[in-house]
């Protein structure tokens, strides 16, 4: 196979059409495609409809930098560091249209999209006020057997962006630690962009075929982005940079010029300049060591 889908991070914004619905991989503080998020901000995007199942700093930063025109989400939180400041402000001030969809229902809606079926039944969030609020997502189906089931309607994002551990040039993307629902995002989206810690040969992929969670035929573009989830974790390569997230949240809470300067800094530098400035050699090693430092209490 001679397929070469590799491109550079700088090209990524061109692969995201205007007003595109973009599903972002990762979950909570794990494995969001942060290099891609930064690049969309560098490109000055203000038209992205983000789909974030379990978002954190990815979504907060996109909102803060004015990159989103709309947000579909299950949760956005900075966990121990507090609420998502930019989500709060944008929604409380009526500046950002949102669709809050319970995350498992959103997963199944995306799964339906990936299967090319119009809807899927599920044991859904009966009792949630979000059901009545989103008649475009939740419905019921009556079968010829006489059963009635709650359903979610298929969702097909224009683009999915996920961050993998490694990937070959044909798009076979491997993960070892957290991969959330990234495979289902890739199946559902029309265009799939994989950023990865490193691009490797096909032979290296074939040595661990069980780690390929997204097969290459689903993938359109492959971009090498070391520390591409930073400051989120990418287990087992590196842990969460909680300290950088803490500083970020302080800037977000300060708001105003402090936060504007933070965004401006990101815009003014390339991704490799970002790595040099924020991560550097020593911090990079410590972040890697967080994985080794984590303690299992019983190997059983």
């Amino acid at each position, binding site marked *: 196979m001679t397929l070469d889908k590799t491109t550079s991070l700088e090209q990524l914004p061109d692969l995201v059409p205007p007003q595109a619905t973009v599903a972002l991989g990762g979950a909570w503080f794990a494995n969001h495609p942060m290099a891609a998020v930064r690049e969309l901000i560098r490109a000055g995007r203000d038209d992205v409809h983000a789909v974030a199942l379990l978002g954190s700093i990815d979504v907060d930063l996109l909102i803060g930098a004015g990159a989103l025109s709309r947000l579909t989400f299950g949760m956005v939180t900075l966990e121990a560091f507090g*609420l998502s400041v930019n989500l709060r402000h944008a929604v409380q001030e009526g500046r950002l249209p949102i669709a*809050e969809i*319970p995350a498992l229902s959103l997963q199944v809606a995306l799964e339906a999209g990936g299967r090319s079926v119009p809807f899927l039944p599920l044991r859904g969030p009966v009792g949630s006020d*979000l059901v009545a609020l989103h008649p475009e997502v939740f419905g019921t189906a009556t079968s010829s057997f006489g059963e009635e089931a709650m359903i979610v309607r298929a969702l097909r994002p224009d683009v999915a962006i996920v961050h993998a551990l490694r990937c070959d040039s044909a798009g076979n993307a491997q993960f070892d630690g957290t991969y959330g629902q990234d495979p289902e995002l890739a199946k559902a989206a029309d265009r799939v962009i994989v950023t990865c810690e490193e691009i490797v040969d096909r032979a290296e992929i074939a040595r661990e075929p069980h780690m390929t969670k997204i097969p290459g035929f689903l993938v359109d573009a492959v971009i090498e982005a070391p520390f591409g989830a930073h400051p989120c974790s990418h287990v087992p390569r590196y842990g969460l940079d909680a300290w950088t997230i803490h500083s970020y949240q302080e800037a977000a809470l300060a708001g105003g010029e402090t936060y504007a300067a933070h965004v401006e800094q990101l815009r003014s530098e390339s991704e490799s300049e970002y790595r040099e400035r924020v991560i550097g050699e020593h911090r990079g090693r410590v972040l890697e*060591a967080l994985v080794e430092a984590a303690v299992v209490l019983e190997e059983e």
Partner: protein
Amino acid sequence: MPDYEIQELMICRIAAEMTAEGEHITLMGSFTPLAYAAYMLGKLTHASDAWLAGYNAVGMPAIELSFTGAEPAAYKAATSRASFTENGHLFHLGTRGLLECVSSAQIDGTTAINLSAIGPYDRPKVRLPGGAGAPEVVQNYRKLVAYFSKHDRRTLVPVVDFATGRRTPVGREQRDALGMATNGPVLIVTPLAVLRKDDDEAPFAIESAHPGVDPETIVAQTGFELTVPTQVPTTTEPTGAQLALLRERIDPRGTARFDFLSGAERMSYLEQILDAEWRRAEALVAGSAEVAS
């Protein structure tokens, strides 16, 4: 009687709900110290055969609590991997979920939890994070525990501003009839008491009051109707063995205390813990640099 902090008592009470039930499994997502501590305590004591999953790691063993270490530890000795969607169908949307511990900004007497908005939903006073998978999970798991770091009328409210999720029905017979998983009441565990709801038509009742808390205080601090039994039992206190496990092995840096602090104290406590986590990792880097030189 050993000295303990209130979150330790809450952890021990919740851990009692953690049982090994055959094909049922408990899945953990983002790092929520109190819930994690309860799961680990159960797993290291009476429920060693209980199945745990963390993130995409299924069949994970007990781990040490840590803001940066919980996720990597989950993977280290787990027996399998699965996509959230796959696990979603098995546990969260199926009938194999065991114990869900959820915390929210508000809860009311119907079991409705609010993780969405304080004030009007469309133009809220406080936009909250959203419920992640809680709306489905509270509905489908065998057991549901809602826990709170405060017990007051702003948290246990007459009616939530918005129902992000709700368990309905609650009653065992009604759930059985619908083919829904169940094994017990909905519990609320707070710094004052354990409340339980067994029946859709009846209010929450006080299951037990924590030592030194009188039922009147609990009722006064609760925004919804409570049934008060004539004899209110006292919540079982942690044993020395449980406290030793929690303090020495499960949560040596005290992450579970974090949610019980507020304001500046809270942030400086977090910074302390994170400093310790950084130093541990940095020591490993220094150690390997030494070996290399």
